[in-house]
């Protein structure tokens, strides 16, 4: 679904005030008379009670080693872990659960593909296509792979709006040497929604595979990897209202089957001899070490919790908040938006002229408004706009119009206090 087509009527059907009360941290802050305006969901989301309960429940009811023991606890733990894999597959519209690899997060997912696929498939003269909007975690792993294989990085640039024009993608693909296009679905720094389905079509026509960094899209819009057409899709648990330390790499079955292992260890082997080891099939081949059972289970619960909310309505809600905030900020004297994409998910970046982003962040913090200030691990994108840092407000399922009001009031105050 294109985020720009979000239906405002769908948003009205969800009771976001009631949803907010499902988050103990936000609920307790409000009860203590210190209501928190949490606008840093692009960095990490707060956790609903259902997810916290699920993780604790796993420890209290059926905690044991995953796929290791013959005892009942281990079997139950393994069943929950594998059920979570199925939930992740359903969340993504994947063909099968064994296309889902549990990893620590988006960063590890991309490192896995860059190292494992890269080592096996890249060589001198090959190119890896990135966009000017990428998060460092979708840049540095590819630089490491390029350095190890002799491949090189090429970049589809961003324009003045902070969008990635398809012409730039097509031009880069025109070299005929691009083997992998690794692109963000939604820019964490600017909120731009990238046309990943179109990019995938172009890349496939040019003989390249496509990895989509879905860290910011998975929490914000319905995901359907079949419709996107991509080959790999990565997202983090802690950004989709799930626990820390777990994330998902989805990959096409035949691609995963052809990949060499990423890390070696227990659980990823068939048979180990000192002369020769044979590896388990995917996804276990890529899950060396004791799996994070309680976290994977809680992630599965988070994905079900989120998917039950009508993701189109959630997308419309967050998009409306971000658009409203962007319009109001742009109208505020002394404030400049960084990135004015036509398709925007729940993220707004801006600067207050004459004031450093960190000072604005501190003034907002003192007013109970938590935003991110800095380069957002996207220094190339910051450079394209000629700023070292921005203030970023990012919205989640628990935010509402009052949060936008308090953001605006805080920004105006910061400007009056700090601007030179």
């Amino acid at each position, binding site marked *: 679904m294109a985020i720009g087509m979000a239906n405002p009527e769908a948003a009205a059907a969800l009771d976001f005030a009631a949803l907010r009360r499902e988050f103990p941290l936000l609920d307790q802050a409000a009860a203590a008379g210190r209501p928190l305006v949490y606008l840093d969901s692009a960095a990490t989301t707060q956790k609903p009670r259902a997810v916290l309960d699920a993780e604790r429940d796993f420890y209290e009811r059926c905690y044991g080693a995953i796929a290791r023991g013959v005892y009942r606890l281990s079997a139950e733990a393994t069943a929950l872990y594998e059920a979570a894999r199925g939930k992740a597959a359903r969340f993504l519209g994947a063909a099968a659960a064994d296309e889902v690899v549990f990893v620590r997060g988006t960063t590890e997912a991309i490192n896995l593909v860059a190292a494992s696929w890269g080592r096996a498939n890249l060589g001198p003269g090959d190119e890896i296509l990135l966009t000017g909007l990428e998060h460092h975690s979708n840049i540095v792993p590819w630089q490491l792979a390029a350095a190890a294989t002799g491949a090189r990085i090429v970049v589809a640039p961003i324009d003045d709006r902070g969008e990635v024009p398809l012409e730039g993608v097509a031009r880069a693909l025109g070299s005929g040497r691009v083997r992998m296009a690794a692109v963000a679905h939604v820019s964490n720094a600017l909120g731009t929604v990238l046309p990943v389905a179109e990019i995938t079509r172009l890349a496939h026509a040019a003989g390249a595979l496509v990895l989509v960094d879905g860290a910011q899209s998975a929490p914000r819009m319905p995901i359907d990897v079949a419709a996107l057409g991509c080959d790999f899709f990565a997202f983090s648990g802690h950004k989709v209202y799930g626990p820390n330390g777990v994330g998902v790499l989805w990959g096409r079955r035949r691609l995963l089957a052809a990949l060499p292992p990423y890390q070696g260890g227990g659980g990823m082997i068939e048979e180990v001899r000192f002369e020769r080891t044979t590896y388990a099939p995917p996804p276990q081949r890529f899950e060396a070490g004791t799996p994070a059972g309680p976290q994977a289970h809680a992630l599965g619960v988070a994905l079900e919790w989120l998917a039950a909310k009508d993701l189109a309505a959630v997308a419309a809600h967050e998009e409306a908040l971000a658009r409203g905030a962007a319009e109001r900020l742009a109208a505020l004297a002394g404030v400049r938006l960084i990135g004015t994409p036509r398709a925007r998910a729940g993220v707004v970046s801006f600067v207050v002229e004459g*004031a*450093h*982003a*960190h*000072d604005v962040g*501190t*003034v907002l*913090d*003192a*007013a109970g408004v938590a935003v991110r*200030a*800095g*380069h957002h691990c996207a220094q190339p994108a910051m450079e394209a706009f000629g700023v*070292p*840092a921005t203030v970023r407000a990012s919205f989640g399922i628990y935010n509402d119009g009052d949060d936008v009001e308090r953001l605006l009031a805080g920004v105006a105050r910061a400007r009056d*206090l*700090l601007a*030179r």
Partner: protein
Amino acid sequence: MNELYDLYQEILLDHYKRPRNFGPLPGCDHEADGHNPLCGDRIHVRIKLAGDRLDEVRFEGSGCAISTASASMMTEAVRGKSRSEAEALFDRFRALVTGDGSAPADEELGELVSLGGVREFPMRVKCATLAWHTLKAALDQPGAIVSTEDGR
């Protein structure tokens, strides 16, 4: 909210908006770059010595209100001091911004006391000490580059 006004006091904002001793220092004999990669603050400190005394200290760079004001106040506070006096002042300043606020006001610090409010904002302490680390690096090893992430 009161912490906010303790942090962004009028005197601090004045140093931020009109930094003292800002600009190049031709003929300097010690200099160093300081960088805070977390917020992108960059500062260049130059020193002209007269014997063991810091005859003139100037700085350039870009940064937040805390780091800019701290650098500006520092250039005034260390002027005319010996190396060891300047380093001792850094120690007292560091105690001010990292302490729990229970210590009595340190009269020696003068205007620098206005940066004490930063102790309520632990994420910003590095902003306040960047200029001082850079000054120390310049005195210790000319041409040095320091980062707030060097574990200092």
